[in-house]
């Protein structure tokens, strides 16, 4: 393999219509951000899938490590008082 610089990888986020959040659609290669936007338009919105696109170079994403999932996410599991079903109310109470 040559030591040539290849087009970097970009992550593509598309808002499918106003009112919805941008969602991760996939990735692609592009030389720069402008090209990434154009490529994303041609690759991921050919069937009218979007009204707005975000592109982020993949190397700029910091991801949590699944090995830490225990300490990161499990402590939230037993905090049931954050959910409405934790609170007992008589059936007669309406609109709550």
């Amino acid at each position: 393999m040559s030591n040539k610089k290849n087009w970097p990888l970009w992550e593509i986020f598309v808002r499918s219509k106003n009112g919805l959040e941008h969602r991760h659609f996939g990735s692609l290669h592009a030389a720069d951000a402008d090209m990434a936007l154009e490529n994303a338009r041609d690759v991921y919105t050919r069937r009218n899938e979007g009204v707005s696109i975000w592109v982020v170079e993949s190397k700029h994403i910091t991801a949590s490590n699944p090995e830490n999932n225990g300490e990161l996410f499990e402590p939230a599991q037993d905090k049931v008082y954050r959910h409405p079903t934790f609170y007992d109310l008589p059936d007669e109470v309406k609109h709550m």
Partner: protein
Amino acid sequence: MSEEQIKNLEKQFEERIARDEKIEPKDWMPEKYRKTHIRQMSQHAHSEIVGMLPEGNWITRAPSLRRKVALLAKVQDEAGHGLYLYSATETLGVSRDELYEQLHSGKAKYSSIFNYPTITWADMGAIGWLVDGAAIINQVPLCNTSYGPYARAMIRVCKEESFHQRQGYEIMMKLAKGTPEQKEMAQDALNRWWWPSLMMLGPTDDVSVHTEQSMKWKLKRKSNDDLRQQFIDQTVPQADLIGLTIPDPDLKWNEERQSYDFGEIDWDEFWQVVKGHGPCNKERMKARVGAWERGEWVRDAAMAHAEKKQKRQEKQAV
């Protein structure tokens, strides 16, 4: 990590898959899982990209504007699908350029069907109807495979491919209903593409090497022979409907099995093509390598421009 620790991790890993949990890129995975997935996913991506060539061959000669735009859109989708699949493969820590190298050096395989020539317009119909038909049978179960990025790519692929087979069948239908010359063209294409399409679903179960492990990892949900039977059972009535004849004298309905019995497949031909000696293996590779090499200065230029632009912007900011 000790051997026992690894064994333990592997056991947990297999249990997660058995529970239908998805595996995501950063999760721990056995090396064999990673390697098998890189192989199968890149092979799938290569098939999409090489698969553009036999159909691309007819874009400039499509018989009507309506057919031309449909064919262009279809071949373009194949580029898109290759792209989705390469991207999904890249999540396993291999770059697209490395995958291309494997394809171009002949190390990686792609579906052998694309090594057959497209010599008449009816071949566009036969490919859409039969080849995409067989591909769909293979692909739909993969929407639920264990590796998250692969499953997500396949969902997108399957959604987009729904028009491909219809496009092909419509071409065949029109030809079959056309002049005697057109009908003959359609029958000729069916004759040439039928057996390669059956082979496309892979070697018979008794010689297929990867099946058991692949079943466990949900890379495969049904055996090659089952898929082939399903393909035949659904395709024969479609041929009947438009008055074309499946080129297999041994084909007949088996009341007891509620399925079609069919004739012997010429596996020697299959292995000949897989090993690189099909009618168009060399042309296909030459086209792919040629496009890549001719594009090198373009890719370099885009990178050089991006870097210069960034430097200029940084300078301005100072």
